[in-house]
């Protein structure tokens, strides 16, 4: 609970360094960072960019970082609400608005451009929602339709702008691919303002957004104004997208909304932590991307930022402790190792059961006990010896140690209990239960074993094999 209350404050705290830097930013030496002649930067430039010494760089880097933060935070909720690709339709749908404002004004008027972008973006979202209500049109088709047709409309208008030679073609292009270097002081302030608004709104409505993400109907029953909250969430997404257009471009801005939350999801099950991680990783990739493109101006900022976020996603997907791919492979591997070991021990127990306690078993006999490959048998056997559960006798035979015998008896007993249970309570023929018990014996927990004992009235002993005399298992 305390941790949860701390989260909004942590979000706010993440903004503080930026506000300081913004406040201190004074117009300094104007080094053009759009200079295309630069290829490989010297250390001076790198340190200058890293330390935000250069005024333009400072504006760009801070603006982009705040954008990454805001997009990561609001993107988390959109992601959990399975609205991730709605942002894609939204961002592509901003183009007609931008092009129309360009066409009418013939000049670059940032507030009006952003307003046009927001209006046509919202129209795009409404179109997706409208199309979705038609039973024959699935949501993904609706998104694809809106995205491409609105983009087409934008391109038609853009074609006119180009033909009319108003000299603003480049201005539009920067909205499509993003051109962080073109960011001005006030653009960065705008992004900063939006970032504050997004973080503040997510803090304020944290509880409502949370239940909305996980259980819409429950949210309604709890008196949460579902429609209002949904609209608020959508409005924040629109806001973030629109101010992000210039920095990363309309094609890639959606990835700032999707990738950091998707990466954060691997690390945690807690929404608060996920929001923090997504915000932080969004900010980190934006910071890195913007810095890199400040020292290597030929690289498109938006693409670099997205690539950084992509690397973070890949690392998260691979290396996250519980949900990661490597962890999953490790889990699978250690499970199969345990199963191999338990199979060996059971073979010993069955062997002793047939002959006598302490009788050695040869490799040949073990191999015949079940259909395992010599290699995997050897490996499991080695493991049992290392664990001190099996010893190798002088005659080449293997024997259980006393510790091994206890463990082997436990496994054999689990196997038999399950077989018996299937025969008595699930009416499965004795000849068919072995395979099933073979799978289940490894995962029977203590409480389940107790329950089986109760159901079968088998308190202590290992039940005899249900299979035909001499047939073996």
């Amino acid at each position, binding site marked *: 609970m305390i941790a949860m209350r701390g989260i909004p404050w942590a979000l706010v705290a993440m903004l503080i360094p930026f506000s300081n830097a913004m406040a201190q930013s004074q117009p300094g030496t104007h080094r053009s960072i759009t200079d295309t002649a630069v290829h490989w930067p010297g250390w001076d430039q790198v340190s200058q960019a890293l330390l935000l010494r250069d005024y333009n760089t400072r504006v760009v880097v801070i603006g982009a970082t705040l954008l990454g933060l805001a997009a990561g935070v609001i993107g988390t909720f959109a992601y959990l609400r399975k609205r991730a690709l709605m942002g*894609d339709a939204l961002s592509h749908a901003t183009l007609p608005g931008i092009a129309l404002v360009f066409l009418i004004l013939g000049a670059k008027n940032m507030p009006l451009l952003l307003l046009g972008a927001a209006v046509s973006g919202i129209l795009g979202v409404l179109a997706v929602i409208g199309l979705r209500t038609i039973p024959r049109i699935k949501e993904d088709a609706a998104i*694809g339709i809106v995205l491409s047709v609105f983009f087409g409309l934008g391109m038609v208008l853009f074609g006119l702008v180009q033909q009319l030679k108003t000299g603003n073609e480049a201005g539009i292009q920067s909205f499509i691919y993003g051109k962080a270097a073109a960011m001005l002081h006030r653009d960065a302030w705008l992004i900063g303002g939006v970032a504050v608004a997004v973080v503040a709104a997510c803090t304020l409505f944290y509880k409502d957004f949370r239940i909305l993400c996980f259980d819409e109907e429950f949210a309604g029953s709890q008196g949460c104004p579902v429609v209002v909250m949904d609209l608020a969430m959508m409005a924040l997404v629109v806001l973030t997208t629109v101010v992000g257009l210039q920095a990363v471009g309309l094609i890639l801005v959606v990835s700032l909304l999707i990738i950091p939350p998707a990466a954060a999801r691997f690390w945690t099950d807690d929404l608060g932590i996920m929001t923090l991680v997504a915000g932080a990783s969004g900010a980190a990739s934006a910071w890195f991307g913007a810095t890199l493109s400040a020292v290597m101006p030929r690289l498109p900022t938006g693409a670099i930022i997205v690539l950084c976020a992509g690397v973070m996603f890949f690392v998260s997907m691979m290396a996250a402790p519980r949900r990661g791919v490597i962890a999953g492979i490790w889990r699978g591997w250690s499970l199969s190792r345990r199963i191999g070991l338990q199979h060996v021990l059971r073979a010993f127990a069955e062997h002793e059961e047939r002959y006598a306690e302490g009788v050695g078993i040869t490799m040949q006999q073990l191999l015949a006990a079940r259909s395992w490959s010599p290699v995997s048998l050897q490996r499991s056997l080695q493991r049992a010896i290392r664990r001190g559960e099996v010893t190798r006798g002088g005659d080449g035979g293997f024997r259980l140690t006393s510790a091994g015998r206890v463990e082997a008896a436990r496994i054999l007993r689990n196997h038999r209990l399950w077989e018996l249970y299937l025969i008595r309570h699930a009416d499965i023929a004795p000849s068919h239960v072995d395979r099933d018990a073979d799978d289940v014996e490894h995962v029977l927990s203590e409480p389940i074993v107790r329950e089986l004992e109760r159901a079968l009235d088998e308190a202590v002993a290992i039940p005899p094999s249900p299979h035909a005399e001499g047939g073996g298992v």
Partner: protein
Amino acid sequence: MSGWDWSSDGWIVLAGVLSACSCALVGNFLVLRKMSLMGDAISHAVLPGLAIAFIVSGSRASMEMFVGAVLAGTLTAVLSQAVIKYGGVERGAAMGVVFSVLFALGLILIRQAADHVDLDPGCVLYGNIVQIPLDAIGGEVPPAIVNLAIVFGVNVAFVGVFYKELRISTFDPQLSTTLGIPASLMHYLLMILVSMTTVANFESVGSILVIAMLIVPGVAAHLLTDRLSTMIIVSLVIASASAVLGHVAAAFGPRWIGIDADTNTSAMMAVVAGLFLLTAVLASPQHGVIGKAFHRIQLSLTITREDILGLLHRWREMSAGDSRPMHRDEILAAVGDSTVSRWALRSLVRRRELVPAVSDASTRSPAYLLTPDGIASASVLVRSHRLWESYLAKHFAIPLDHLHMSAERWEHFITPQLREELSQDLIAPDVDPHGKEIPPEHGGPGR
């Protein structure tokens, strides 16, 4: 561009038609398989493939570029599947991650490649269809047209040869696997074909607009028909029409509205396709918004009409056969005053089921009486209502005062056959649970 010139506009339109049709052909299956976004993802993600092949081979329009892009497109399908399966990421988000990262990578590579070879990143997005005729030196067929024709031919051949397999694996993957048609093989073949089509269309319509051509004709056709073969044909017609009209509108449209310019043909193709879709959404007989609204209004008109008849029937019963007319105000107050109820009243008079009664001096509004026809329709309706109430009372433990609501709703949908069955089940009852008389099936104003 001042007038229509077959030597350039002809080639442009032909390129547009070929590219739109080849996209629409495979797009149908994307739409039906609910994989529309895969087209989106692939079209974004072929970019790095193009760029790498471009850097390696150092030229445009080469086989390497084609192969590279097809590989990248197919890789997207495989990667998205891997992120969904191993990462447990939701489908849409997984595709979003994969295609945006690949697109970003492609963008960076293209920026680098553009140093060495002439390639405009803008072309990637919206193609360069007007350039195509410029390659037609001395009446030869432009190479881009040849490429598009080949891809269209391959798509037609693929759909033609594997029509049955595609159909079964699209509508019922399990069935197709049991029939020995590997659904996942068809899936990946389709993905390869989509990548190939996307790449071939890069030059003419560009990466974003190819999405429009993949999805929009298919969705529009799906709204208009239920048969796969018809759907394919309709989608091809829509695609071709979008290409032709798109070019005309792009070349001449701005002048009609007084702007002296022309605009992007491929973008206009997407817009025209969007307009076709909008038309289908509004006007499709079965699924269209207008058709549905019309049906809804008709249904509510019928229901209100029947409610009025029922009302007058009960009024008549209450006044014990003495045919007193009922005032318009009273009728509208009882059924709810709305445009639909006024229409219903008017249409009842038109159908000669109600007649305006001779009103006395004190009336504020016209009054109505049931005609013999009206009495017949009304008693059928009241019979349905009361039979249903009796049936509910007999078989379900529903309190008497709760029967009316259900009957009020269902009376409009009870067919003569159902009435017959209800009557048999209840052994031809005379009165309903409230003790009111159930009118006979035929025979007008009761006994």
